[in-house]
Each structure stands twice: as structure tokens, then as C-alpha cells.
């Protein structure tokens, strides 16, 4: 579904990504972890072309992201993305957040978009909040709305960029529960996250990044059982033992 081949990226002379290669199969859940500044958020933003890259290739459903001939908005509409800071549109109600792209990008009718929005809000347990503005919701609720907003577009894959990092601890689980459910339903997911519990429960593979490179790309059991690189071992021991 997502194929990343030899992707390198520079900010000026500073190299942020070095020959990253991996893939996410259909229905597969891949967790990307690593210390901050390791390039994991940059890599996931390259997947839907939010960040340009200078070398290599990324294909989503066979379509190249960096090809100038690719209709990028059309491709992006098929890939859901959830951000660290939710990025709901504060001047719109929850329902308007959910229907905007359905109407403007997919060309759905207002009623159809609204029905879809209600169905997905119900799914994340926030049906009663449809007419509120995002500012009146808690962080956990906002992030669940953001997930529902992405799902409204019937995406073929979902990208999560540290979806729980900006949340208070007591709200992390309500978001993770939605993500676990999504994973169990067979959604193709690429998640940048530090939530190793989530990785243990639903991930098929774990990618460990450090200094812009993919250091470890292993199945979940291999990664948690016996990570090959010393760097990944250190990282795991630090985040698992407290």
C-alpha cells in the first residue's frame, strides 16, 4: 500500500532523512518510534507529500507522491492524517470540520456528508458534540473528532503523527482505544508514537529511527523480544522501565 524507497531529505545542508526504505502492506499496522529529532514525523509527512524530499520515491497505492504529474490533492484525499496538535478548524463547528472536505473534495451532497459525519462521530463516541466548536472540547475529544474527520473521506490508509503526545495522560487511552479498534478492523495504518503498549497490542511491525535513518525494521515480536541494534535496546529500556 505504502512503499518508501531510498528517501533522503535535506533542510539546506542538514540531512534529516537518510535513505529510508520500508513498506506498509494493506491492512498492516506499522508503528514508527525513536527519539525526538530522529526524523519520524518528517518521514510520515513525506508519505502524503506535506514535506517534499529530494531523493528516493514514495508510492501510495502505486501512485508516486513526488511525481510532478501526480494529482496530489486527489491522492491526499485518499490518505487520512491525524496530527499531534489535532488541527481542527477552530472557526467551524465539529460537524463543519467533518463535512468540509467531503463536500469540497469528494463532491458529496450536504445531507450525505452530514450523515457520514454523524455516523463517524457516533463511532468515536461524540455524536452529541456535533454542533460545538472544537475549542469547547477536551484534548482527547478533539483528537477523536480529528480521527473521525479523516475517516469521513473513506481513506485507504491512515497516518498518525504522534496523536497522543499533546494529550493529558488521562485522555490518552480514549484516543488509543479508537485507534486500536481501527487497527482491528483492518485499516492500513502508519503511526508515529511513543505508546509502546499500543504497539504491543496491534502493531504488526515496528520501525525504529535514529538520526534520520531507519535503524530497525522488525516484526513486533522481534522488536520487543530482541532488538538487534544497541540504539534500539537503549531506547526501549529507557521508555519501558518507568
Amino acid at each position: 500500500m505504502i512503499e518508501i524507497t531510498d528517501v533522503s531529505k535535506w533542510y539546506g545542508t542538514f540531512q534529516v532523512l537518510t535513505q529510508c526504505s520500508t513498506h506498509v502492506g494493506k491492512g498492516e499496522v506499522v508503528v514508527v518510534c525513536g527519539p525526538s529529532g530522529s526524523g519520524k514525523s518528517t518521514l510520515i509527512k513525506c508519505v502524503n507529500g506535506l514535506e517534499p524530499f529530494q531523493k528516493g520515491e514514495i508510492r501510495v497505492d502505486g501512485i508516486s507522491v513526488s511525481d510532478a504529474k501526480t494529482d496530489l490533492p486527489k491522492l491526499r484525499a485518499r490518505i487520512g492524517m491525524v496530527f499531534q496538535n489535532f488541527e481542527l478548524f477552530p472557526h467551524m463547528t465539529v460537524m463543519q470540520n467533518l463535512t468540509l472536505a467531503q463536500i469540497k473534495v469528494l463532491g458529496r451532497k450536504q445531507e450525505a456528508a452530514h450523515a457520514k459525519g454523524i455516523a463517524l462521530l457516533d463511532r468515536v463516541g461524540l455524536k452529541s458534540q456535533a454542533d460545538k466548536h472544537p475549542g469547547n472540547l477536551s484534548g482527547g475529544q478533539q483528537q477523536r473528532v480529528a480521527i473521525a474527520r479523516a475517516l469521513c473521506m473513506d481513506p485507504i490508509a491512515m497516518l498518525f503523527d504522534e496523536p497522543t503526545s499533546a494529550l493529558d495522560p488521562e485522555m490518552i487511552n480514549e484516543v488509543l482505544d479508537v485507534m486500536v479498534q481501527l487497527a482491528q478492523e483492518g485499516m492500513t495504518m502508519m503511526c508515529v508514537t511513543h505508546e509502546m503498549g499500543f504497539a504491543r497490542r496491534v502493531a504488526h511491525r515496528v520501525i525504529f529511527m535514529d538520526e534520520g535513518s531507519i535503524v530497525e525494521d522488525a516484526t513486533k515480536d522481534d522488536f520487543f523480544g530482541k532488538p538487534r541494534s544497541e540504539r534500539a535496546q537503549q531506547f526501549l529500556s529507557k521508555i519501558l522501565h518507568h
Partner: protein
Amino acid sequence: MFSNFDYGVIERNWHYLFFDGMAFTLRLTLLAMTGGVVFGTLLAMMRLSSIKPLAWIAGAYVNVLRSIPLVLVIFWFYFLVPYIGAWVLHSNTPVRVGAFASSLLTFAMFEACYYCEIMRAGIQSIPRGQVAAGYAMGLNYWQTMGHIVLPQAFRNMVPILLTQTIILYQDVSLVYVLSITDFVGAASKVADRDGRLVEMYTFVALIYFVSCFALSMLVRKLQARIAVVR
């Protein structure tokens, strides 16, 4: 000093002063504001564009126009537009442009420079993540701007945009160089005819002060309300 004031001159001419003079001033202010905000927003989008020539052209336009006194721009524009029009339309005779149309165009284009800088700050005040979220959902540049960035930028900047409009409202009095009868023009005509210069100009100043002060109080109230909403 006020003992030989003839207040009657105001009473006798108030209809002319307000329904001819002030009505014109307000009409020109509101129309120029609308044109200026629209054009200024486009300029701001150009200045922030990643397409360098666009950014350069908009930057040059803003910087050049802001370094010329407004009176000169009004004057030049009034005399140049007929010739520019003739050149554009390949006509041999200068195109007749009314004083109103000419001054409206001038003010809209001149104020656009200031509205541009305000909207530029407004657009830059919107977190980059909002733009990323728009693009990630498949919206294109114009949709992201139109539905996500500009509504928020506009809302954040309403108090400053209105403050700029108060300045525009005062600047409109400069149309006297084209012998157009705005509020000040109407008052000066009455003043000259009746020989009541002190009364009329004091009255004009008073009206400007009261209306501008009231408007800026309103803007301050609005500012407080917007701050609460956010």
C-alpha cells in the same frame, strides 16, 4: 472667542453638509475599504507566495506606493488614468473617467498596501499545522486559503482592519484636490460662501473627532469580545 460664533450657519446648511458631503465621504470610505481589503488580501497572498516573481511584484508595489504621499497619488492617478485607459483600449482619445471612479480606484489601490500588510500578518498568525491539515484532506491552495486560513486571519485582524478604515475615512478628505464635494469640501464651500470659516472648520473637526473616537471605542469593544471567543 466664541461670542461672535454664528451657529446658525450650521443649522442652515446641515442638510447639504451631511446628505451631500458626509454621504459621499461614507460611500467612498466603504467602497474603498471593500476594494482595498479584497485587493490587499490578494497582495498579501502574493507576498507570501512561494512563487518568487509574484512575491517580488507584490512587495515592490506595496513599498513603492507606501513611499509616495497620498495626495500625489490621487492627483497623478486622476490625470493619468484617462491616458492609461486609452492605451489599454487602443483608443486615440483619453478615456473619460469620472472624479468619483478615479478617486475610488486610487483609494482602493493605495489602501490595499496597508490592508495587505495587515492581512499578511493575519495569515502568518495562523499555525502552519492548519494549512497542513487542509492540504492533508485533499483541499487545494485556494480552498485551504478560502475556507481555513483567510476566515481565521480575517477574524484575528478585524480590529486592526477597522482601525485602518478609520484612517481611510479621514484620508478621504484629500479628494478636495480633485474639487470633489466630500464632507470637508462641502463645509469649505459653505465657509467660503458665507464667510464663516472658523465656525465651519471647527464644526468639521468636531464631527471628525466624535465619529472617529466613537468608532475606535467600538473597535476596542470588539477587540475584547474577539479575545474572549478565542
